[in-house]
């Protein structure tokens, strides 16, 4: 029973971290209509910047948690203005190709700057221990922290979209770009802001994940595939779908990792394939008219 | 014009959220008839076409073609059953030549689309049929031109050629003469009347140009707010007070004076 509870907590942990990353992908798709293939690379960049800040510059974890996502967001603005801007209005395939090119560029740049090796980052001092839980379990404090960040992100996003003007503008631009333009909403700026926000979320995920994962040039690949699976299971463009998909994938990893470890690689894909067969647009995706 | 009805529409509804784009449409169309559908913008004509051609699924109601229930079938199935439609905005293959546009439709219709080892440019059977269609519509001289580079009116003619190439029984024309010169419009009218006279085609034609409507229609259906407002032969519609009222203030349509 205890091990089951632990596996469940693990699932929640993994799921919420996945949510932070996948929701950024979803938001960018919702407004730009494009999947950013480089999203995983931005997450990885966040993790590497955390490493650079903590180990390289000796900064406290909390400072990098604040700064790294901002740096990546600024980079995203530059990318949008310098690259994506050119193909705005062209067919979708061109945008997909461009974000794919961006993926190559970012991946290799990171590899060139930091090398092929694995780096690690320690969790910040107050979070290095474990917490006592009912039933004599001990749960890593940092994992609890990740849970907290995930919940705060969820709450923050929900508030953003339902309460703030910016959130409503983003939703409007997502649902009807032409209408948004006629209402004099500066769509170009909304697009840049959305792209930067998505990058910020990805990098935030990266910084948060850094003390928990091995930081290596392959981590971007892994997370982008995971994000895709989340988004396919939950439904592209759906905010609750991203949460649902993330939790499902978290469960697959948490429970699958405990009880069927040899299938851990293939289970997520099987889950995705099942959803594709039964509900191609995801558990909560919109069906076409 | 006698015989079993080709198309029967039974209490057809399409709702988007709380709005009914099409509400409780009942219609029976005998084979060989030319039925014009008129109504102000937003009356639901295009939605009605979308439902008939399978582009949208109805919220409720039934559509029957030759006694066969086609409600909710996908577009390609309905097309195979003999329904073909044109679109308001040109829906052709702009990167192909005019001739290739029609050849695609003919290839599909004649079951040639699975041939993977022939030379499409040497497919005599397909080419002859395509050529004759182009000639019928008077655009054979444009055969080798990329369809994206020809005039708007000619593009509409290509669209109609593609529609007819699948040898449909029921043809849904969505504002076929919009944006055409008088000469082109006359050509379309002549074509529709000639085809209708053979008795092998049933036309539904939505139009804003009343002269075209009164020229080709056996009956006229007036739609308003997604419902049928009036249905009958042209003279009856012309003198119908409800129809006049619906059109008051609508600048685009003028009923042709009797």
């Amino acid at each position: 029973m205890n091990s089951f509870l632990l596996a469940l907590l693990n699932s929640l942990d993994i799921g919420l971290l996945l949510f932070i990353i996948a929701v950024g992908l979803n938001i960018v798709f919702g407004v730009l209509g494009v999947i950013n293939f480089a999203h995983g690379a931005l997450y990885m960049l966040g993790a590497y910047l955390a490493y650079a800040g903590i180990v390289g510059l000796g900064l406290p974890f909390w400072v990098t948690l604040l700064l790294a996502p901002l740096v990546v967001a600024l980079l995203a603005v530059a990318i949008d203005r310098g690259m994506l801007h050119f193909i705005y209005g062209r067919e979708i395939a061109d945008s997909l190709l461009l974000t794919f090119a961006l993926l190559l560029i970012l991946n290799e740049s990171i590899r060139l700057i930091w090398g092929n090796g694995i780096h690690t980052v320690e969790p910040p001092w107050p979070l290095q221990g474990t917490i006592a839980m009912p039933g004599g379990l001990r749960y890593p404090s940092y994992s609890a922290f990740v849970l907290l960040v995930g919940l705060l992100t969820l709450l923050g996003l929900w508030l953003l979209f339902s309460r703030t003007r910016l959130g409503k503008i983003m939703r409007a631009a997502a649902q009807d770009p032409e209408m948004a333009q006629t209402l004099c909403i500066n769509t170009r700026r909304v697009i840049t802001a959305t792209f930067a926000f998505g990058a910020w979320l990805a990098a935030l995920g990266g910084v948060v994940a850094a003390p928990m994962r091995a930081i290596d040039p392959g981590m971007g690949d892994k997370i982008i595939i995971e994000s895709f699976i989340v988004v396919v299971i939950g439904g592209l463009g759906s905010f609750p779908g991203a949460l649902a998909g993330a939790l499902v994938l978290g469960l697959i990893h948490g429970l699958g990792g405990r009880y069927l470890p040899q299938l851990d690689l293939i289970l997520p894909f099987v889950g995705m394939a099942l959803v594709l067969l039964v509900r191609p647009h995801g558990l909560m995706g919109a069906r076409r008219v | 014009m006698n015989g079993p009805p080709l198309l029967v529409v039974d209490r057809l509804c399409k709702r988007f959220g709380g709005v009914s784009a099409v509400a409780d449409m009942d219609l029976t169309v005998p084979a060989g008839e030319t039925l014009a559908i008129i109504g102000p913008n937003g009356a639901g004509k295009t939605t009605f076409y979308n439902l008939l051609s399978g582009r949208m699924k109805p919220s409720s109601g039934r559509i029957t073609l030759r006694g066969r229930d086609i409600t909710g079938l996908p577009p390609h199935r309905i097309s195979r059953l003999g329904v073909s439609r044109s679109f308001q905005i040109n829906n052709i293959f702009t990167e192909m030549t005019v001739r290739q546009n029609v050849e695609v439709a003919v290839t599909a219709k004649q079951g040639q689309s699975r041939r993977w080892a022939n030379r499409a440019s040497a497919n005599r059977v397909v080419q002859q049929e395509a050529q004759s269609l182009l000639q019928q519509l008077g655009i054979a001289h444009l055969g080798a031109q990329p369809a994206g580079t020809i005039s708007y009116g000619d593009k509409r003619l290509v669209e109609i050629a593609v529609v007819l190439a699948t040898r449909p029984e029921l043809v849904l024309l969505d504002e076929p003469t919009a944006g055409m010169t008088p000469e082109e419009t006359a050509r379309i009218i002549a074509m529709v009347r000639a085809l209708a006279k053979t008795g092998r085609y049933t036309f539904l034609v939505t139009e804003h140009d009343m002269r075209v409507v009164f020229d080709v229609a056996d009956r006229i259906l007036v739609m308003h707010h997604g419902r049928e407002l009036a249905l009958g032969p042209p003279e009856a519609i012309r003198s119908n007070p409800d129809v006049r009222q619906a059109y008051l203030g609508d600048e685009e349509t003028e009923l042709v004076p009797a």
Partner: protein
Amino acid sequence: MKRLATALTLLLILGLLVALPRITPYFYIFIGTQILIMGLFAASFNLVFGYTGMLSFGHAAFFGTGAYATALLLQGLQWPLLACLLVSFVAGTVLALAIGALCVRLDEVYFAMLTLAFGMMVYGVAHQWRSVTGGSDGISGFSVGTLGLGIDLTLGNPAVYYYVVLAIVVVAGAALYRICNSSFGLVLQAIRQNPERVAFCGLNIRTYRLAAFTIAGGFAGLAGGLMAPFLHVASPDLAHWTMSAEPVLMTILGGSGYFLGPFLGAAIFVLLETWITSITQAWMLFLGIILALMVIFFRRGVLGTALVAIRRRRSGTS
């Protein structure tokens, strides 16, 4: 007149390819073999992308599978090469049918995403399934024995292998060309330009898309099967998304609107890669930058841009 010019150009290229081992330094035999194999790989991708309008980022799944199929057969059963290649072709076809059936029903964004994901799944399986695929080391230690059909050749000789690859790629390319120019190919091109219109002509576009994807998977598998003996190893990298990126870039480089575009792109790509990797480690970075620049500024590729320029000059001087 135009057809004569095209035919002559093709004959000239073919002639050069045949003469290559005689007229260039030894090293270029390897370059040539690589260009031919990658050209076929890219051309199979272009059937899906340039002709049918579907952007797949997981095409290497079939390439890698084909490589493993041939490698395993050569290592375990020492089959003649042609038999191995046939199996590679079939393996690619079957895998493409399975993956395609799941992916083809959805729009292009989903499709791009899913093909990448499933491609990486194949990579993951190749990487983890040590007992069958040799894990991250892959399959090695095999040699090519006979060609098959009673033809006696020393396939271990790079120049001989080059000619075999040339023959197979020309035959496969011709088959692919035939498919692209058939009535089926016409329908595929129509689907790329206006899928809805094709549906309204009475065709189930999903079936045609799946057929194109499956055929392309087969030819990619064949290319992979040719690659394994060339590299003397079948490794998981051959299914990684970075490998899927290569036909994408080659096709964009050469021009997705033309049958020979991917082959030209493969030639440019391989030559560029050879040159740049001799100078720096950052080849992938250049790959990404070049792809970005091509997509933004030269979307029609080298062939497309050149042909447009020629046409413009001709109409300008007349």
